[in-house]
């Protein structure tokens, strides 16, 4: 059978691979430039997001923006309750010194020397520059997790994702089993019908589904998010197509081996369909984790908010707390990244060999 394993290459040799032997061929240059462009295009915004999530609110609004999260140094000066921001001031004679700003009036700021807090000097604002240092604003992360209900949002999201994915896998694989292992009249018609539902956008059925969910008393419970989307045409299609490739002999051998239909499903077909199931699991996890519109509609109390709905709460009508939004967006990204890292192997390798020649 097909052997999908390739010889392992070290990371260094992989990223320095080239076509010409020893020297760079023009295609190497072109390829690396193109790939670098691709990396920047795809990964740039993510890096920017992570960097920005560590900036203070004022750092975020600064223009021109800085790449690194730089914060202005603040010093404690005698006679002042709050720490004062530190500036570098260039005086008339060209000498520079560091002063803390007490207040700013128009284009003039009142400043004080931290070493000599009694005398204040007036400095035009164009003669001072901020003294900055590299500083991570961890409070962007800690505040929402401590002060807001973000931990419970996270919990809700995890419950929804895990339960919904399990339910989806179970229901879809059973439907796929029926539509692939059994041969009956109308099998393809049913499959077409299921695939046809792909063409109905969720917005069209939003209201009827909402009414059904309301009648069943599921509003403001996580089941309202989990159940309506559990059976997905994509999932049934994906699994069914994969199960069709499982050799019929195996199913018949299992029948001869006294296996019940349930045993054939759970002990033979499911393990063999693992690659497809892993793919569907990844899809399902991403769909559920990122789902926004439907939870927003059926979840109205903050105890049952999922992460995405919770994130939306930072976006008020008058004030958008970008630093919290950015930080929590990073938090919501982490599980998806982790899932991908661990399950992507399943997509590529697959259980190619079925033990048959």
């Amino acid at each position, binding site marked *: *059978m097909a052997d999908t394993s390739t010889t392992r290459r070290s990371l260094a040799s992989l990223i320095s691979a080239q076509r010409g032997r020893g020297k760079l061929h023009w295609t190497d240059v072109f390829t690396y430039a193109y790939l670098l462009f691709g990396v920047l295009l795809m990964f740039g915004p993510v890096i920017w997001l992570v960097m920005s999530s560590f900036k203070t609110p004022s750092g975020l609004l600064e223009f021109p923006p800085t790449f690194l999260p730089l914060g202005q140094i603040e010093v404690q000066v005698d006679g002042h309750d709050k720490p004062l921001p530190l500036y570098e001031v260039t005086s008339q004679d060209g000498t520079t010194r560091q002063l803390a700003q007490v207040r700013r009036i128009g284009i003039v700021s009142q400043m004080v020397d931290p070493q000599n807090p009694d005398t204040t000097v007036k400095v035009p604002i164009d003669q001072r520059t901020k003294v900055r240092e590299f500083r991570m604003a961890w409070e962007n992360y800690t505040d929402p997790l401590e002060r807001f209900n973000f931990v419970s949002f996270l919990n809700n999201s995890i419950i929804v994702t895990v339960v919904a994915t399990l339910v989806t896998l179970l229901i879809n694989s059973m439907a796929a089993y029926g539509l692939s292992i059994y041969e009956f009249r109308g099998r393809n018609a049913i499959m077409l019908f299921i695939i046809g539902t792909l063409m109905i956008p969720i917005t069209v059925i939003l209201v009827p589904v909402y009414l059904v969910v309301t009648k069943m008393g599921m509003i403001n419970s996580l089941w309202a998010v989990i159940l309506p989307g559990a059976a997905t045409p994509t999932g049934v299609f994906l699994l069914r197509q994969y199960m069709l490739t499982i*050799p019929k*002999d*195996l199913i*018949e*051998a*299992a*029948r*001869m*081996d*006294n*296996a*019940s239909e349930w*045993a054939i499903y759970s*002990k*033979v077909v499911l*393990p*063999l369909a693992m690659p497809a199931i892993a793919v569907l699991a990844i899809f399902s996890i991403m769909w559920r984790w990122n789902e926004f519109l439907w939870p927003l509609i059926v979840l109205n109390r903050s105890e049952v908010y999922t992460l995405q709905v919770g994130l939306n709460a930072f976006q008020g009508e008058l004030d958008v707390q970008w630093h919290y939004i950015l930080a929590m967006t990073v938090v919501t990204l982490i599980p998806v990244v982790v899932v991908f890292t661990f399950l992507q192997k399943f997509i590529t390798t697959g*259980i190619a*060999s*079925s*033990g*048959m*020649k």
Partner: protein
Amino acid sequence: MTEIKLQQIFKSYGSDEVIHGIDLTVNSGEFCVFVGPSGCGKSTLLRIIAGLEDVTSGTIEIDGAVVNSVSASARGLAMVFQSYALYPHMSVYKNMAFGLENTKIPKPEIETRVRAAAQMLQIEDYLHRKPKALSGGQRQRVAIGRAIVRNPKAFLFDEPLSNLDADLRVTMRKELSALHDKIGDTMIYVTHDQIEAMTLADKIVVLKGGCIEQVGEPLDLYNSPQNVFVAGFIGSPRMNLLDATAKNGPQGWVLEAQNLTMAVPQVEGLSDGAKCTIGIRPEHVRIADDGVRDTTVAVAFAEQLGGETYLYCDVEGLPQITVHQPGQLPVKKGQQIGLSFDRANLHVFDAQGRALANRLTA
């Protein structure tokens, strides 16, 4: 010990009838081989017995009980598939134990049975391996082992050796034969290879186009084929089949064709001027340089194998004639030789292909 009886089995796929009324009894403890060209319905027949296909009409009896409506799993038969159909995600042990686990047999009992079967088939060392880490022959053994552990009423084999290379096929053939001697269960074996059929079978069933052509012991089929198809199918190299016409001349009966005149005793059922087919096996063709020749041919190929010689001879108006003689013959390519056909082993078939005589005696 199990007797399997088929009565008037018909099978159609839609309007396409593939099995046209088969009656057959496989006796208890018999090694029965279904043989025939591809598409003759032999695998379908096996799957009908297994319960993997339903019949359109007719009855299947196992030990006197009609099992038409009994599911494959409840018929108590075991099947070895052409592709082996080992579960790729299970170890060899698990593969063999799967059928027993489904019947809720206690674990220690399963363990004993699997170990015993593994020992008999010499696969004990591979019990923990996955099927993909086994060679073709080993997979074959596991597939057979999976059947043995269940103590089935009968074994069904669907072309089990066709995926093996030639050497291994010969070895496995012997092992299968030995296995049948050892366990003595009823076995039904499907193959398109007549050598496998000849070597393994107690009883051969020759099928063609969904009908039984002949049933019998291997040598009966070889010596007394009932029709042209069986005559041509059984035996390697093939029997020489020559179309001829019967004539009752002044010197008695002759069978005539272009470049062929054979004086024969009268054949019952053959009238003057009737078309017929002469069948003669390659080993019954003699080189007759001095005596009476039936035909004179030119040698097209000569295969000298040392212990035996094959000649392929061309003559105008007749198909190529194969000659098989033991020992080494002083014959060269292109040489003209006379051939005579051994009357005691001559087969004569009528225009419909039915055998009129399987030996001619004066």
